[in-house]
Each structure stands twice: as structure tokens, then as C-alpha cells.
């Protein structure tokens, strides 16, 4: 094998693997005559897409993206200040942290119906569920990032009489950036899961709702198509966060644990 071909193979490996899996799936479904209501072949899934209008698809996709992104932003706005508070104050750490762990240990899927009953049916409960599912990793990663600063740097800044806010802005936060981005990557996929969980419980639009609707009327191929689109949305959002990190904080990419 010449090195150029090897390089090409290496670069296209993920796509080739995906194609191989789809091919095996397609051949398997045809060879064993698996009925569409058990496992539809990829070709059947693709063929089911035009059974709904393009505007219907885009409406569902936008609904899910809207809830995911709003919930995601809310969880960032909540989690980063919380992490700063926890690392900066022993009192906060002693009072808030146990509650965070309680919230994280609660299966959100189980309390989602209760949230919907309490908050009524609308976008609000869906955003709350999404936020609850995605904010915990951001708090924990950010807090550990803020705390990972070498002690001598903190001592240096204090000996130079730097204010608390400068200590955070110029030392702690830059140190935490790789950690925060690791958290943001985990959280964006969780936000999509959160939105779908919320749609399963109460919604009249969104990809999660479409999956529920299609399976209830045994249109399994449409459900699979919705699932595939959902996975693509997740991957694209993840890629967007990676791109953002490379764009704004290229120095942090090497340190960031992927």
C-alpha cells in the first residue's frame, strides 16, 4: 500500500465504517426478510422521508433544536456562576453542592411528568427538563478546572495584591477553559437527549414527539428517519462547539481532554 492511499483510508475511516454498517444492515434485512415493523432496512427508512412534507420535518427539527439550545444556554448561565461560587466559597460548597448531587442522582425521566403537571404544557417545562439534564457536568468540570490552577500562581497574584475578580478573570478562568469546553461538549449531547425526553412526556411538536407518534401508528421507518436526523443534529451541535473552541481558544485544544 502506498502512503497516500493509507492516509486517505485513515481520513475516510469514519465514513467508510458507517457505510459498511449500513450496507450490512441493508443486506441483512433483505436476506432474512426482516419485516419493516421490526427493523426497517436503511433504504426503506430513506424512502419513508418523503411521506411527510419538508415543512413538517423542518418544523419538528426546529422545535427540538429550539428547546435543546435554550435549555443548553440556561444551563451554562446557571452552571458557570455556580461553579465559581462553589470554588470561591466554602459556605456555598457546603450548602449547594449536596443539592446539585441530589438533582443529578434523580432520574429526570421519572420526574419529567411531575414537572409537566406542575409547570403546565408549554415550552417552559421542556426547557426546565433539558436544563436539569445538561447542567450538572458543566458545574463539575468548570469547578474542577477553576480549582486546578497551580497554588504558586494564586500565591503570586495575591502577593501582587490582585483583586479576587482579577484572580478569576486572568488566572482561574483561562485555566478552566479546556475543562469548560470538555463540559460543553458533553452537555450539548445531553441537551438534545433532555429535549427528546421532554417531548416524550408532553409536546405536540419535535423529533421526540414524531418518534412517539410514528411508533404509535406503527410507522417504524419514519421513526427511524427521525432518529437518524436527531443523531445528525447532535453531531452537528457537537462539531459546532469543537469549532468554537478552535476559533476562540486555539491554545486550549491540546490540553482539552476529548
Amino acid at each position, binding site marked *: 500500500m502506498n502512503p497516500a492511499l493509507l492516509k486517505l483510508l485513515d481520513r475516510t475511516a469514519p465514513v467508510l465504517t458507517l457505510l459498511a454498517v449500513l450496507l450490512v444492515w441493508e443486506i441483512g434485512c433483505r436476506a432474512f426478510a426482516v*419485516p*419493516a*415493523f*421490526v427493523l426497517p432496512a436503511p433504504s426503506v427508512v430513506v424512502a419513508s422521508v418523503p*411521506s*411527510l*412534507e419538508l*415543512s*413538517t420535518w423542518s*418544523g419538528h427539527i426546529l422545535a427540538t433544536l429550539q428547546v435543546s439550545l435554550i435549555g443548553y444556554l440556561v444551563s451554562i448561565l446557571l452552571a458557570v456562576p455556580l461553579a465559581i461560587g462553589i470554588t470561591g466559597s466554602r459556605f456555598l460548597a457546603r450548602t449547594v453542592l449536596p443539592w446539585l448531587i441530589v438533582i443529578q442522582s434523580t432520574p429526570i425521566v421519572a420526574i419529567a*411528568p411531575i414537572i409537566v*403537571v*406542575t409547570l*403546565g*404544557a408549554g415550552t417552559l417545562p421542556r426547557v426546565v427538563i433539558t436544563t436539569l439534564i445538561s447542567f450538572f457536568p458543566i458545574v463539575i468540570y468548570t469547578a474542577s478546572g477553576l480549582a486546578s490552577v497551580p497554588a504558586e500562581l494564586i500565591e503570586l497574584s495575591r502577593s501582587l495584591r490582585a483583586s479576587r475578580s482579577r484572580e478569576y478573570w486572568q488566572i482561574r478562568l483561562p485555566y478552566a477553559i479546556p475543562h469548560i469546553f470538555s463540559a460543553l461538549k458533553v452537555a450539548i449531547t445531553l441537551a438534545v437527549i433532555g429535549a427528546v425526553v421532554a417531548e416524550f*412526556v*408532553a409536546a*405536540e411538536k419535535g423529533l421526540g*414527539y*414524531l418518534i*412517539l*407518534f*410514528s*411508533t*404509535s*401508528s*406503527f*410507522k417504524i421507518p*419514519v421513526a427511524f428517519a427521525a432518529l437518524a436526523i436527531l443523531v445528525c443534529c447532535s453531531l452537528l451541535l457537537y462539531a459546532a462547539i469543537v469549532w468554537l473552541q478552535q476559533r476562540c481558544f486555539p491554545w486550549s485544544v491540546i490540553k482539552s481532554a476529548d
Partner: protein
Amino acid sequence: MHFKQSLIAGLIGLASLSAHAADKLVVQLDWLPDGDKAAAYVGVKQGFYAAENLEVTIQPGRGSSDAITKVATGAADIATGGISALMMAAAEGGIPVKAVMSVYSKQPDALFTVKGGPITSFKSVVGKTIALPPFSSSAAIWPVVLEANNIDPKSVTLLKVDPAAMAPMLAAGKVDATINWTTVAPNFEGVLKQAGKELAVLPWSAFGLDGYGLSVFASDKLIAQRPDVLKRFLRAYKKATEFAVKNPEAAAADLKSMVPEADVTAAAAAFRASVPLIQNEISAKDGLGSFEPKLLAKTWSWVAKSKDYPMDKIDPEKLVDRSFLPK
């Protein structure tokens, strides 16, 4: 003082405005907007609500109990759902909701099995495996129906299965029968056809189960504060139901225009499957929408037996309000 006066003036202005603006109502369905729910959408599309000066929002639901809870908590004004769920809610500690109109005067529960299979009647379920949806009113009432037919419920193996997995399991021969509402028969036929099988439906109403099924509920708040709005809604909803019974295809098209995920052919078939539950000898005798006291008591007796409630735990008459039905 000036502020107070202008506030009062403003409120009076608002009140006179709202006399002309359409009254808003939120209607909570008991399940996803499949074909059997078409009547609610017919009301919007054929202008029955608008003619009564109503602006109706329809929300899909996740089961009768879910729909009743939403009305009780004020997230919706009106709901549809099985009246047995309301009876259970009342028996479990009261709920500020009343049934104001019956839609199904026959119970929709049925056994679905394969034509030419081992199950041909209720008697032949002994020793068989049957799938049923968890948390459904059918699951609760099943053992009582068996006992009424002198069959030991323990002689049947039950599998609790997600509703979406039932038709595939029946088609694959993993279970001998499933428990469903007759309205989903068309969906099952499609799945079974792919497996080269044919569906046989055994409605429980043919084996002694009698009583009201799907009904319309209203919150006590709506009854107390906007009785006139409720009256107008029921008039419109009854017209919409009658229209859908006469024109299932048009009803399915109306549903499709508001629920783009729906499939017109399947929706029309599903609604047609529900027509015998709406239009039958009972509705012909008592009129569509009525709650005849004897049949209502019978409905409660099935619920009480299925849940081991004492018969005097609730008075079913206290759960219905007949005064809003159009004459």
C-alpha cells in the same frame, strides 16, 4: 384615586371588548392525534367552534389519567378520556373535574388475535400469552371481565408491553393475543398483512363488558366560571362528532390539515373503527352524549371490581353534570 378610576374604566373597557372577542378554550386529548380523535379537529376546520364564537386550542396527551390531571391542574379547560379513569381519580381522593358528555356508549376494549389462531373466544384464552399496555384502564379491568366469564385470571400469562411494540409481537407470533381499543384495528391490520396474517377482533362488549368509554370532561372551574362557554363548546363538539360519523374521510382530511404527521387513509380507517362505539343501539335510545344512570352505575361497578373499591366509595352520579348537553 385617579389611578383606581382609570383602572376600573380600563377593566370595564376590557370586559366589553371580550364580549366580542372569541372565548379561548384549551382542549386536552387523551392520546396522540390519531384518527379516532378527528372530531376535535373537525370542530376547528368546519367552523363549528367559530360559529359558537370559540377559539379552541387542541393539545395531544399521554393517556386518560394524564388528560384528567391537566384539566384538574388548570393546564387545560376540557379533556377527552375514558370515564373509568375519572372514576378511579375520584375514588383515589377526589378531583375537581366532571364528565359532561359521553362519546362512546360502548367500551372500546378488545382482544386482538390472528385469524385461524388458537384464540377464537374468551373461553380459549386459558393457558395463552397475552400482551397488554401497562397503566391502561384495559389492564385494570381485564381480570374482572375474565371472572365474569368464569375464567381464572391466573390461567392467562400476561406480558406488559409498550403499545408501539404490540402489533409487531402479535405479527411475529410472540404472543397469542393483545389487548387494545378497537379503534387501532386498522393499524394492526397493516402490520399483520406484512406478516401474511389476518386480524380477528373480539370486543369485550360482546362478552359482558358494558358501560361508557370515551367521554368529555370539564374542570369545576370552567363549570363555575364560564358555564355558557362550556355549553357552546359541547354544542359545537356534538355537531363535529356527528359530522365526522357521517364523513370520516373529510374528518381525516381536517385532522391531517392540523396534524401534518397524520396519514389520511389510516386516520379515516381509525375513525370508521370508532363509529360503532359512538353510534349504536344505546346512543339511538338515549341520544348521543347522555349518561343514562343505570349504565353509568354499571360502568362504576366494573371499575370498583377491577380496583377492589367498595361499591359505595363514590357516587358516580356526582361525577357527571348533564346540564350542559345540547337538547
